[in-house]
Each structure stands twice: as structure tokens, then as C-alpha cells.
């Protein structure tokens, strides 16, 4: 059985060119960039070139990019280090109720340790209201951390407006762009972003690799202590093969390519919605089909079917989707994102699944999904009718 992968928000396969870059690096250029000899200098050059490619991708300066072990580390770094270094300026941190777990868990920890964390609510489309942010913003707010786009429903936040609002405020503006980085045109200057997190494995790059954009002048000590790597901002021998692989993945994502993917994934969404409607599946979209959303994520309420039933049926049919994010998938707790959008008592929070598209997704994959889901709902309806008849 061919397996169909519609879970690209969880992780993506590395592209052939990324694997080739990394294999080449590991075979030939294996020096430690901190070494003074030729191996070290060669490694340093690869590091510098990769940093330049990546800085350009968000209109940042090279020395504003710090490589990390991924999105989780970047997010943890921002929250823990900002809280520590700015505690004399205030204790308020503003975020949303639908951030990724790497922020939610860190926020909860800080909330239990003397910080005043405000979680902004979201509407049924999964976005925040700027007025809520204005109301929550106090003089002693030290950090506003709001994701660019959500990983479960694909909603986007008014990043540009938030950036403008905070321009003359002491609060640093952080955005978790892990899901948005491969699809949206990100400009840290246009949007007045101070700190930004990304992850390579969401864009066909390697796992445990990402970067943190840290605007010049934003100063906090390294989260990881040790050697002086990354200009003393992140200790640990640089993972040059993964960094070079990341840069290769970023190179493929030109502005045109990103716009092309957004358009393609938007048409995929419509295709799935039309297909399911035609097949008579009883469903609703969680969130919206707004054109400014992240188009690779489609979250569906399959009415009357618990998500573990749907996931199991689809998996048996060879179609991989998820309920909520991969990180919380192991548990059967309701998605905190859907709870924030609809309330914990709404049946949707336990009856929804997430599809997410990627570079290798085809309409044939979508057909497989539509057919498998239709077959399942028809089978369930038939057995329900049978029971009723008996």
C-alpha cells in the first residue's frame, strides 16, 4: 500500500538537494568552525555563506541570525532569556492562547514563577483582535510573543500592526514563524519584528536545526552556555552540515516559489472542500478559507466522528493526517487551539482533524484522502442506520 502523507505541518521529508548538500558536507568538509586550521576556516566559510542566504530571506543582517537546534530551542531561548534579563523592567508578557507548546509550556512555567502572562483570546477564525492586545499592553510589559501563523488551523495574526503598535514601546516583539516561514514573505524591518523563530524541518530541511533572528541591540545572554560559538549567543559546536542543508532548503524558497505554493495549497484546500461536499460528508472548516491564511493547513470538523476513529480509519487506508499538532498527538487531550476558538464543550474539539500540504503533495493524494474519508463516513452512517432499524 502506498502511504499518502498529508501531515506536513508536523514534519516534511528532506528534499534531495538538501540531503545531497548535507552528505557532501559530512563527507568532505567536516571541520570544527572554531578551529584555526584550514578545515576550520572552510567550515567557517560555509557557515558564513549559509548565514547570509538565511539573513536575506527575512531581510535581516547576517549577524542578526543565530543558529539553534530548532523551533523549540529558539522559542525557549526568547522567553527564558527575556524574562531573566528584563525582570527589572517588568513582569508582564503578552502572548496568545493558541501558541505552539514550546511557548505555552514555557509561559506556564514563568507564570508559576512570578511573571504575569496574558494569553490573548482568539475568534472563531483563530486570530486575535488588536484591541485586546492594546488593552493588555501595560508600561511594564517586557515581551509580546505572537505567532505569525497557527500550526493547527493556519490562521495568521496581524503581525505588521502589532509591530507598529510596539514600535515605541519597551516590549520586545517576538513572533514564532515556524509554520509561516516557508510560505509568507517575511520582512523583519517592515513589520518591526525584534525576535523571530524558525525551524528547518518544516521546510524540507533537517531536524534539530533552526534559527533565531535577534535584532541588533536586543541583548541577552546565551541560553546554552559554553564555547563562544555564534558570537557568544549560542554555545555548542556548529552543526554545519545541517546549517548548509537549511540554507539549501531556504534557497529553494524564493518569493515567487512561496507565492506559488500559497496559491497551489489554496487550490488544494478548495479541492478537498469541494470533494467532500460533493461526496456528502458532513463537515465544517475550523477557521476560514481567508486568502491571507497559511494555505498549507486545513482543519476539518468531521461531525459526529471522534478524531481517534477518523485517524485510525485513515491510517488503515494509508492516509496520514493528524489531530492537532504532532507534539500533542500522543495524548488524547483536546487541542488547546480549538478550545480557544470554540470553547472546551464544543464537540468540534474532539472531532476534528488537520490536513497539511507540502512540496510533494499531489491532487491524487487529495483524492485518496477524500475517498477514504467518504468511505469511512458512509460506513459509519450505514451501521448507525442499521442500529436504528434494529
Amino acid at each position, binding site marked *: 500500500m502506498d*502511504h499518502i*502523507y498529508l*501531515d506536513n505541518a*508536523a*514534519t516534511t*521529508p*528532506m528534499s534531495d538537494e538538501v*540531503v545531497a548538500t*548535507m*552528505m557532501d558536507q*559530512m*563527507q568532505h568538509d*567536516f*571541520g*570544527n568552525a*572554531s*578551529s*584555526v*586550521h*584550514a*578545515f*576550520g576556516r572552510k567550515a567557517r566559510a560555509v557557515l558564513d555563506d549559509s548565514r547570509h542566504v538565511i539573513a536575506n530571506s527575512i531581510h535581516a543582517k547576517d549577524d542578526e541570525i543565530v543558529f539553534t*537546534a*530548532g523551533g*523549540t*530551542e529558539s*522559542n*525557549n531561548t526568547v522567553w527564558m532569556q527575556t524574562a531573566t534579563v528584563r525582570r527589572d523592567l517588568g513582569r508582564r508578557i503578552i502572548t496568545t492562547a493558541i501558541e505552539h*507548546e*514550546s*511557548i505555552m*509550556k*514555557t509561559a506556564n512555567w514563568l507564570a508559576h514563577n512570578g511573571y504575569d502572562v496574558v494569553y490573548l483570546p482568539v475568534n472563531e477564525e483563530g486570530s486575535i483582535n488588536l484591541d485586546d492586545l492594546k488593552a493588555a499592553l501595560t508600561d511594564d510589559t517586557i515581551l509580546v510573543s505572537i505567532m505569525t501563523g497557527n500550526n493547527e488551523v493556519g490562521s495568521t495574526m496581524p503581525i505588521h500592526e502589532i509591530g507598529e503598535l510596539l514600535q515605541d514601546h519597551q516590549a520586545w516583539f517576538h513572533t514564532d514563524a515556524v509554520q509561516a516561514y516557508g510560505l509568507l514573505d517575511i520582512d523583519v524591518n517592515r513589520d518591526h519584528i525584534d525576535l523571530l523563530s524558525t525551524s528547518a524541518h518544516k521546510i524540507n530541511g*533537517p*531536524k*534539530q536545526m533552526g534559527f533565531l533572528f535577534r535584532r541588533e541591540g536586543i541583548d541577552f*545572554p546565551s541560553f*546554552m*552556555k*559554553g*564555547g*563562544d*560559538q555564534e558570537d557568544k549567543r549560542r*554555545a*555548542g*559546536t*556548529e*552543526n*554545519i*552540515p*545541517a546549517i548548509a542543508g537549511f540554507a539549501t532548503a531556504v534557497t529553494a524558497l524564493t518569493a515567487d516559489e512561496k507565492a506559488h505554493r500559497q496559491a497551489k495549497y489554496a487550490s488544494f484546500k478548495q479541492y478537498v472542500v469541494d470533494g467532500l461536499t460533493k461526496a456528502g460528508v458532513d463537515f465544517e472548516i475550523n477557521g476560514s478559507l481567508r486568502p491571507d491564511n497559511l494555505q498549507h493547513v486545513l482543519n476539518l470538523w468531521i461531525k459526529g466522528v471522534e478524531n481517534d476513529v477518523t*485517524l485510525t480509519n485513515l*491510517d488503515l487506508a494509508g492516509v*496520514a*493526517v493528524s*489531530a492537532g*499538532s*504532532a*507534539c500533542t*498527538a500522543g495524548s488524547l487531550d483536546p487541542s488547546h487551539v480549538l478550545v480557544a476558538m470554540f470553547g472546551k464543550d464544543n464537540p468540534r474539539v474532539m472531532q476534528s482533524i488537520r490536513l497539511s500540504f507540502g512540496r510533494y503533495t499531489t491532487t491524487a493524494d487529495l483524492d485518496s484522502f477524500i475517498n477514504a474519508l467518504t468511505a469511512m463516513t458512509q460506513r459509519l452512517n450505514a451501521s448507525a442506520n442499521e442500529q436504528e432499524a434494529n
Partner: protein
Amino acid sequence: MIYFDNSATTKVAPSVLETYQKVSEQIWGNPSSLHNFGEQADHLLEQSRQQIADLLGVNLSEILFTSGGTEGDNWVVKGTAMEKRAFGRHIITSSVEHPAVHNSMEQLAQLGYEITYLPVDEEGRVSAADVAAAIRPDTILVSVMAVNNEVGSIQPLLEIADVLKDKPTIHFHIDAVQGIGKGIPELIFNDRVDFITFSGHKFHAPRGIGFIYARAGKRLAPLMTGGGQERNLRSGTENLPAIAGMARALRLMLENESDNVANERAVRQRILDHVKDFPKVTLFSQPNDHFAPHILCFAIEGVRGETIVHAFEDHDIYISTTSACSSKKHLASSTLTAMKVPEQVSTSAVRVSLDENNTLAEADTFNDVFDQLYEQFKKINS
């Protein structure tokens, strides 16, 4: 080309690369996902963990993956401090630790913890008696490296374990980044140790991967919070190709450990025997069982370490100043300073670090080049 800088980093083994590529292409799912892609990935993740646990003779649940040695050290030091802050704020460590431990300690000092840095003798070793004398009722952690990365001395880990035997509430951490596969497993995996740090790229696994051993029942606050991977102790999507590669690299290294060690010791001895009689040479690594087989640190009086490194490089031989981490700073080695080596000598130090692939023939070439360079340096300095 002769690569004698294996303590800085090692080349990924060809079969490890194969594993890496295969996993990248075939089992690239997220292990937390419930579907088939995720299950396959999770299966391989746990298989790799089991393989590592079996190789080391520990339990599956005692192996936790990290992004490398720096993270492992940061995690154990700061995670212990956070976990045990209600019980005490005193920590004991040596004055020759890797910066990943040392700078984590400095950070804790700023947060109100008290750190005792134990002195070392002329071999770079702490004494267990000093550990015993430093222990207080509020001591929560003793953190000592297995093998020093600059001079190669092995710390008296069994004696320290003995001191801590009747102090079960103190976490005992060993940074074994330079100590794995060097013929001293019984020192590292002693009965008393609670946490051990390992780094993959020091034993032919890829960069950006490592693991810690955490004794069952010993608690550590997470450094990285989020999706709850690694039993809720270390969040972040698992780097499966690197993890599977590391399991393989560890097996390759450990199945030939005694041969590897014998080879490294012989190569090191060949160089040591040659250079030790030159009047301007000072040896910091000794040919006794207080030192690991793969590291040789020495100084040529009157020549800066960097100059020596570049001179060897011109002959296609790659060595380093005392550690890659400190080599860019043009500073005296911290280990040598702790060993009370005067600065004018320690700034002349270089490190030769070997792996199992180095040969006696390479040592002979090195020795020949050494003779030439020594003569050149003598002329310049006279």
C-alpha cells in the same frame, strides 16, 4: 593529509552516513505522529535508544537525546539547580571543566548559587579528598569531567563516587564527551553516577546530536519545554537520522574499543617518545594511566601555539591549540592555568588528538615535520 584534531570533531563514519541518508529518505516522519509515518519513526527511535542502552549496559529509559554535549551539560547542571533549589544552592565542580559546564556554573552563580571550583594537581586532576572536604549539607550537585579535553587527564571518578556513596541526595554528573570509547567504561558507569553527558560528533556520529544518561529515579527539570518529547524531559522534534546514525557510530566504536585504545596509545607514545627529549618541549600529558590514550598536549617554549598549528598545517597536518572552543580567543588555556602552568608556557601549548584511524606511519611523519619545525623555530628565536 593527517588529521590529529579529533577532540575538536571527528569525521562521520561512512556507514553512519549511509544510515543517515537512508533514514532521511525513508523514515522521515515525526515520531510523535500517530499515523504510519510516525509509528515507523517512533519504532526506529526506540530501537536506537535500546541499542545505545544495550551497548552501555543501562536501561532504555535512562537514555535521553539532546542536540549535543553543550546541551547535555547545560541541562544536567541547570536542570539539577532548578529541580533541587528548595534543598540547596551549593555545587561542586573542578576548575578544568569544559566551558559548557563552567559557564553554566557561572550563570548559576549570578542567580545566587554557590559554586566551589576544586583545584587540580600538575596532572590536571582533582582529589577525592577535596571533594569530600567541600561537601556541605546544602550541596546538590558534584559535576566532574571524565577526561579533560585539553590535556587528556582522567579524573578520579571511582574515588569521587566513593565519597558520594552515603550522600544519595547529591547528584553526581560526569561529562564524558571526551571519555567514551577510551577504555575507561568502569570509571564512567560507576555505581554512584547519576548523569552522564555524551556528544555524537566526537565519535564519528553527525553534529548536533548527543545524549545523556539519567539514572532511573533521579529527577532533572527540563531545559527545553514544549511538545513533551523524551518523556516530557526534552522537547523538540527528534532528529532521527542523526540518532540512528549515532547508535551505529557508538556500536562501531565500542565493539573495537580495546583495539582502538591500543592503537591510539601506541601512536601517542610514538610522538611522545620523540618530542619529550627536546629541551624546549614541555609535556602536559603523561604516559601513565592518569591520562586518556588519545590526547597529547605539549608546548614548545617561545613559540605561540597558533604559530605551531599553522606551521604543521603547511605540511598538511592538522592539530590544534588546546581546545577548539578557546582557540579563537588567543587566550591561555584554562586547564593549563588551573594546572599552574605559567602563561608564557601555556600560550605555547598545542594539542594532538587521535582517533582509531590514525597510524604509526602518521606519527612518524608528524615527528619528521616536528624536527624541521623545531629547527626553524630555534633559528627564529635565537
